[in-house]
């Protein structure tokens, strides 16, 4: 378990380990999904999950792909349009998908977690959003427990306090707001001009409505960012006092994300400056009372996320970290990913494919993966590293029926230089991430990734 302040920021070390690598929001990562996984496989996985002695709770991710304006840094599956009639067309299919998918889960399985991501979920007007939540509530059995997590990503340029009050009344109890940077020249360079006031208005609305946890997203490594300008942004963020802050490193992959071609690469900060930005963020957030949770994420000590980190119940998921025990995840909407039992699957990544499947009454599964025993045990290990910062070897061995030192002999060999640098300590009893390794969790996990070195897959940088 991580104790406050145990993460040590060592700039030389971070520079040394600044290599490309996955974020491990899943293992195996999405690029390894395969085209031979079909709808029937997902249906089978859900049936089988219903038949466990105590079936897991259900988590739903709902993807709303539309954005009214393109942010140049974005790598999400999104569709830029100002035509709001497209939302209604999309929602008709989404409701159909909810009908089909929900009947596959036994009725005593509660929906304990719900997340709306995008795109821009608030491309929907408030009526549409509330109706979508109600539709989900009619088809899935919503958990009534206090600890249910119903979250939405919001763009404060296109909604206000009243909007948040409406969706909170319908059940949303946490929100995540994209900020990225408050500096006006940086905002212009990435085509996302958003004032502190707009952000505060949405936050105030959320707090009025009893929303329990607010997250602000920031990005370092954007064009024109300097240590000073980013410090001003961080001052403003800290003053707004969100319960959680996520700081992502910008990954410039213009060959993969066409919008990024709008970014002048000469305006991007160099590797040294990037590290400086991250360091400033870590220092300012820590001194403002935020705790480092793991890869990209910070939280105030009273927030559920920090409590879960203390209790050792943290989970890694597609949104980063979560406080919930493992759920079966059903992804709804274009490009959404499901994770049911030992399978991953992903919906069609284009509207045409997504609509065509649903118009034929099929679930729009385009690809996926059935996890082998080796995948499952590596996923478990990486989860332990990412969430608990340690691994109890004996318990892991009895859980998976392996001899750890023998099974992972190659991985442990790869780990040795990281041990020598003090990132991590391995003994026959346990693996413990050291203070110097807290910001390099991805690099530690990469040692145990059996897919590392697969050609033709590009990841963002670890730092």
């Amino acid at each position, binding site marked *: 378990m991580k104790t406050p302040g145990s993460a040590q920021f060592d700039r030389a070390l971070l520079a040394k380990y600044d290599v490309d690598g996955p974020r491990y929001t899943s293992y195996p990562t999405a690029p390894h999904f395969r085209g031979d996984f079909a709808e029937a496989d997902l249906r089978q996985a859900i049936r089988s999950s219903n038949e*466990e*002695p*105590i*079936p897991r709770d259900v988590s739903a991710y709902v993807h709303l792909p539309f954005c009214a304006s393109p942010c140049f840094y974005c790598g999400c599956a999104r569709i830029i349009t100002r035509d709001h009639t497209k939302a209604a067309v999309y929602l008709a299919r989404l409701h159909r998908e909810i009908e089909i998918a929900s009947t596959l889960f*036994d009725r005593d399985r509660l929906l304990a977690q719900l997340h709306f991501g995008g795109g821009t979920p608030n491309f929907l007007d408030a009526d549409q959003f509330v109706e979508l939540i109600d539709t989900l509530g009619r088809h899935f059995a919503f958990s009534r427990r206090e600890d249910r997590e119903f979250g939405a990503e919001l763009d404060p340029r296109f909604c206000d306090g009243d909007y948040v009050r409406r969706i909170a009344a319908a059940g949303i109890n946490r929100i995540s707001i994209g900020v990225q940077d408050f500096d006006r020249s940086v905002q212009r360079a990435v085509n996302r001009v958003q004032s502190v006031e707009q952000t505060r208005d949405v936050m105030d609305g959320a707090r009025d409505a009893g929303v329990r946890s607010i997250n602000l997203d920031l990005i370092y490594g954007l064009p024109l960012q300097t240590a000073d300008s980013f410090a001003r942004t961080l001052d403003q963020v800290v003053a707004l006092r969100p319960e959680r802050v996520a700081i992502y490193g910008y990954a410039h992959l213009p060959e993969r994300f066409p919008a990024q071609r709008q970014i002048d690469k000469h305006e991007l900060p160099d590797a040294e400056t990037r590290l400086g930005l991250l360091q400033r963020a870590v220092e300012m957030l820590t001194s403002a009372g935020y705790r480092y949770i793991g890869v990209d994420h910070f939280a105030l000590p009273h927030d559920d996320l920090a409590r879960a980190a203390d209790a050792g119940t943290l989970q890694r998921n597609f949104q980063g970290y979560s406080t919930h025990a493992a759920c079966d995840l059903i992804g709804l909407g274009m490009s959404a990913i499901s994770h049911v039992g030992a399978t991953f699957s992903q919906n069609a990544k284009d509207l045409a494919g997504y609509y065509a499947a649903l118009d034929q009454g099929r679930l729009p599964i385009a690809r996926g993966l059935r996890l082998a025993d080796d995948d499952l045990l590596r996923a478990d290990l990486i989860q332990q590293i990412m969430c608990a910062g340690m691994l109890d070897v004996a318990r892991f061995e009895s859980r998976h*029926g*392996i001899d750890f030192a023998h099974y992972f002999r190659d991985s442990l060999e790869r780990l040795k230089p990281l041990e020598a640098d003090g990132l991590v300590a391995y003994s026959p009893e346990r693996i413990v991430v050291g203070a110097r390794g807290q910001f390099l969790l991805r690099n530690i996990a990469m040692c145990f990734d059996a897919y590392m070195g697969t050609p033709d897959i590009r990841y963002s940088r670890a730092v």
Partner: protein
Amino acid sequence: MEAPHGMGHDQPARSRFVPRNPIADDGDAYHFCSTCAFGSVCLGGGVDKAALRELHCLVEHVDSYRNGDLVFRNGAHFSAIYAVRAGTVKTRLVDIEGRELVLGFHLPGELIGLNAIHPDAYPCDAVALGAVEVCRFSFPALATLAARMPGIQQELFRRLSRDIGNAALLAGDYSADERLAAFLVDLGRRYAERGFRAGSLHLAMSRSDIANYLRLAAETVSRVLRRFQDKRLIEVQGRDVTIAKPAELFEFARPILQR
């Protein structure tokens, strides 16, 4: 890159780990599988080597089945009994409207098909739950041998009477807690008898099968298991159940098991 497989139970370095899906170790003409239904008869009974070889020769076939395959079908002519070698077999009846009635679950080392002796036809279906291996014993040959080897005859009678006893077990007016506790305690004992770790159960059967067998609703099965887990009597990880407090669990099961 290390090989992701090779988790065989024959590697000494891994022998301290209990395989997740119990499988009998291989026998030969003189060494029976440690879980074999007849293993104890032979090992303890001072059987001479010739008889031992004869018994082993009765194993006509080792058959593999996939999930849902039928080992035998209700009404089929009775010719053999089967010993489960790996996995779990469910016995069941299906009525004319297609409704299923689960009769029992059979673990490695246990016999199925014994109740077919009298009407000369199998009185139920036997269905593989997950991957299953069974040894097939020709009944006429077994009967001949049993006449010469009293141990085998006794074993057959003992098992036959236990099957009948199990069926009566759940007929009474018992609560859901009592039924589930008895179910888990009974499974634990049977695993232990076959040399598997008593407190660690792999439930190959679905919760609807458990519910059907115990005459409960599927939701009730999960609700009671969750309650047992909250009381820390058991720990459930997917389909693996660990009995953490056997004595306390037995208290729930006592009305049924001590009848």
